């Protein structure tokens, strides 16, 4: 394939990838209401169960509630195990399986999984990810050379 056709094919694939991102955004992949559905009209979803992924905005040990943000939705989660609350900080992230309640909206938690307890866990994930990326890129560049002018990879040590 000559370079001109290759560039056209690359452009076509990038457009396809963009189309896939649009399709994905409009696809109905869950069998429960989305955060934006609930944010738009909480009372319409009163009593419905859901799985919610949220960033922790604050933790109130006294009322045993967690305030979370999930896309456009801001919600208060109650019924969280005190042992989980004790370990959780603002800046963390959790998953909640529970039921939508009232117009506030609040979520009555049945099960909570903590993905990140707070900023420290995020720092760990980012730091190890940077090491991983460096390892992969380093290994790649050991065997391949990037010819930016012709937009292609060439094996090192070969012409």
């Amino acid at each position, binding site marked *: *394939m000559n370079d001109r056709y290759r560039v056209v094919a690359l452009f076509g694939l990038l457009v396809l990838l963009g189309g*896939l991102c*649009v399709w994905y955004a409009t696809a109905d992949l869950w069998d429960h209401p989305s955060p934006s559905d609930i944010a738009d009209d909480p009372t319409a979803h009163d009593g419905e169960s859901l799985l919610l992924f949220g960033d922790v905005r604050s933790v109130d040990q006294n009322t045993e509630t967690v305030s979370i943000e999930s896309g456009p939705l801001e919600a208060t989660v109650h019924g969280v195990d005190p042992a989980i609350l004790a370990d959780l900080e603002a800046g963390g992230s959790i998953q909640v399986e529970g039921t939508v309640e009232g117009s506030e909206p609040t979520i009555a938690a049945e099960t909570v999984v903590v993905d*990140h307890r707070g900023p420290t866990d995020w720092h760990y994930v980012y730091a190890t990810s940077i090491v*991983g990326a460096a390892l992969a890129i380093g290994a790649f560049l050991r*065997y*391949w050379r990037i010819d930016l002018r012709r937009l*292609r990879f060439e094996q090192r040590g070969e012409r």
Partner: protein
Amino acid sequence: MAEWLTHVLVAYGVFTILGWYVDWLEKRWVAVAMVGSILPDLNRLDLFVSSEGLSALLGVPFNWGALHTIGGLVVLSAIGALLFSSGLEQKRGFVVLFGGGLSHLVVDVPQAYADGLAVTNLYLFPLTTWRAPTPGWYVSADRWVALFALVFALVVYAVDWYQRAKSSG
């Protein structure tokens, strides 16, 4: 999602083992698989250019999440493959990038989810919305996961080194 160190080390181990049985799968292709293992997490482009911002800009819904799916991986692998020089390299590049990315998705499946079901409904887009049960082995911030991957990669490295030393001497 596990962090990238785990994904890269798992891809290194798995593709080095496969290289023991597949002649052309040399170290240079293992390195390509390691890069492939990061491809699905290009959905993190969201941190730099948010899906919401792009949706507003384009006037249509847009979600980078499509990159962390089997459909997105096929297209990303094809893009990467086209950057190799010869037809043979492009075919091998596609297989190895896709394989590396697939190892990423497989590693991500058994994570813990609050409702006990994996998010295969997302990973398998656009094929199915089926959600597989998950054993709930880990969450992405669990430190033992990268340690486990490191031990796996080191064992594979040692066996690989031993085999090469034996065959050359």
